[in-house]
């Protein structure tokens, strides 16, 4: 405990010295988020300085081992770091699917060679990854995927199409589920890693109802994927044809992330903020709206406690393995409600699609974006199916 207090003091001092004031402002737009990658540019010097300081300290991935670019922090230490960063409103130095999704899968299933190479690259934000799971005919029923990799000895030739590949047009590499055995549904999928610059890979943006289009259709036309990138660096994670295990493991992390269980805005109470917002617009909260906000805050604060409990239990292996599905379900439904209420408080002001007052229609665009929360990473209905089957043990589920 004393050690933890000392760590807190040191962390506070380090943050004070290394987190530039510009990086303590709330994220306002897409270019405030740094995603890394081969072609990434920094918005300003502060963003660059903050990233470099964190890389040097291992704070882009605090809990990863030091040899893979992390800081090797224990769970309680990582919590202290999160808390201290939260207190000064520090932005995450680096956002990346590599950190959230591929990294945990590699830590669990990767070879030493893969860890040395890929984890370090991810920690430093050198390579930007995208996730190639969904296909036009395989969304909720992911395991029915058809993209096929034909075995050519030392390489595969991959043909097929993915859809919804977030940021595929900005990504350097893809972690991709490819069928390598047509006879075996679950036992015929390989979890491949390859360069998006490979010949035969093309992407086409998909525009969302929120107006943004970081989502893509991704096409593979005779893409040659080698089986190895060097000594002990296979081009697939886990075992050939056993990629489903990796995919499922990784989905657990994805769901945890989307649920917002690890803190962040979506579980916080909003009533007080909405009252101030209404006052700025020269209005007051309608009594029925106030009541809805109060009921929302009850649910949000209770969910925040659940998030804390879930993370505490995960650390000591007490959480049910299917619990991330519950967190994902409840967290995303809550976030949709949150944005419905924010739209209601904003009234007609929040309808402005392009205006300075709304920073370019931020409220309505965020509201629309949240509708994907209960779809991406597995739909709410699929989460409920999993809870019924794996937690409640209901028959035939």
């Amino acid at each position, binding site marked *: 405990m004393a050690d933890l207090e000392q760590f807190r003091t040191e962390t506070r001092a380090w943050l004070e010295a290394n987190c530039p004031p510009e990086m303590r402002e709330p994220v306002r737009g897409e270019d405030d988020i740094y995603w890394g990658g081969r072609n990434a540019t920094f918005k300003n010097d502060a963003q660059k300085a903050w990233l470099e300081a964190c890389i040097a300290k291992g704070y882009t991935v605090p809990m990863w081992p030091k040899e893979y670019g992390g800081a090797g922090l224990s769970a309680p230490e990582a919590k202290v770091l999160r808390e201290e960063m939260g207190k000064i409103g520090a932005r995450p130095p680096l956002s990346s699917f590599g950190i959230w999704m591929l990294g945990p899968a590699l830590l669990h299933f990767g070879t030493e060679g893969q860890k040395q190479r890929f984890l370090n690259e991810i920690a430093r934000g050198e390579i930007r990854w995208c996730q190639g799971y969904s296909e036009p005919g395989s969304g909720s029923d992911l395991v029915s995927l058809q993209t096929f990799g034909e075995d050519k000895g030392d390489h595969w030739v991959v043909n097929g199409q993915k859809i919804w590949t977030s940021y595929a047009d900005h990504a350097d590499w893809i972690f991709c589920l490819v069928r390598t055995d047509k006879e075996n549904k679950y036992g015929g999928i390989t979890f491949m890693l390859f360069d998006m610059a490979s010949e035969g890979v093309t992407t086409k943006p998909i525009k969302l109802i929120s107006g943004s289009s970081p989502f893509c259709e991704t096409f593979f036309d005779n893409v040659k994927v080698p089986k190895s990138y060097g000594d002990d660096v296979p081009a697939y994670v886990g075992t050939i044809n056993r990629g489903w295990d990796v995919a499922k493991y990784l989905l657990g992390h994805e769901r945890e992330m989307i649920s917002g269980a690890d803190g962040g805005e979506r579980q916080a109470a909003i009533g007080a903020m909405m009252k101030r917002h209404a006052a700025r617009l020269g209005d007051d909260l309608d009594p029925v709206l106030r009541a809805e906000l109060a009921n929302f*805050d009850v649910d949000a604060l209770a969910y925040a406690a659940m998030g804390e409990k879930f993370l505490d239990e995960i650390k000591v292996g007490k959480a049910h393995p299917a619990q991330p599905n*519950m967190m994902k379900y*409840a967290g995303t439904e809550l976030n949709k409600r949150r944005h419905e209420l924010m739209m209601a408080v904003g009234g007609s002001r929040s309808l402005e699609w392009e205006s300075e007052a709304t920073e370019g229609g931020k409220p309505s665009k965020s509201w629309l974006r949240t509708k994907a929360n209960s779809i991406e990473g597995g739909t709410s209905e699929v989460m409920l*199916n999993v809870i019924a089957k794996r937690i409640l043990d*209901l028959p035939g*589920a």
Partner: protein
Amino acid sequence: MPLYHNEDQAMLADTARGFMAEEGNIAKQLRHWRDRNCKDGFGHALWKQMAEMGFTGMLVEEADGGLGMGHVEAGIVLEEIGRNLTPSPFLTSSVLAATALKHGSDDLKGRYLPGLIAGDSVFAVAIDETAKHRPSRIATRADKSGNGFRLNGAKTFVIHGGSADMVVVAARTSGGDEDADGITLFAVPKDVAGLSHDHVRLVDSSMATHMRLDGVELDGDAVIGEIDGGRAVLDAMLLAGRVGAAAEGVGVARGAMDMTVDYLKQRKQFGKLIGEFQALQHRASHLYSEVEIARAATIKAQQLLDGGSAHADLMASVAKAKVAKAARLAVQEGVQMHGGIGMTDEYDIGLYMKRDRALAEFLGDAHFHANRVAELSGY
């Protein structure tokens, strides 16, 4: 503090669970006393057994002969009470009254705590004066009279009021009905002249009274805490009671949910187990999520209260409101998914619905506490 039970607490949970399932179960307690039209609505023998288990005095300081445990521990016992619908004065006596007595004189503690710890005494609390929980409004008056006070007024919904050896009464010693200050708490003994009860059996078969105080004379040493400064003690008592009621509500919700999920696995219709129908699976999964979240909020509130945190009050209202919503869902889905049989007295699921209704009303319902969350958050 991590939001799960430590080793000692997990052990206590095992013990409490086994004990309550064995001795406090629905057949042995709730149905037994209900079918006999018991005037107390609970069994004194079980109360005595709970004392032997060390439950009754768990929140009492060690210096006063208790176990000096916290609200996490009391919550563990309450959750099992809820799960088994065990009629018991634990919440009113061991949580509410015990919390008030913490602020009492040594003399008062000496008079009342040994009986509580031994399971010989039962206490009640008299706060509300209207049909809904309105602790900000205390009209019952206590006027100076000789060395003591004379109390006049009426209290409603005094749970176990008729069985209680002592009732903690909130009365006004100065100011107007809605004033925060000017409240004083009194330990009113059972047989004092001028105290009368109108006994009523509630929907969940528990017994409550509408209490009248007609010129009840009390010595000055019946005062708990400071004269005119009782609001602080009242608030502390309410806080403990709300967190406790939330824990009991979690037990009610979990009991109803477990019973329902079991039923889904047994009942066949259309040639299938009804648990195979996705329409029911999704509702069951949603229910599970709500109950788990309510439980997390409750444990959080317990821990904040034990840690003396300033946020305990807000979280207590979050927990009470969230549990009320989750438990309501659990009993409603419970009865519905049992189909016709769920409407029968023979099946226990309806008993959960009745208990939920009474428990949710006690110390403020979901609306009351959501409103409180708004007020405490500044809107």
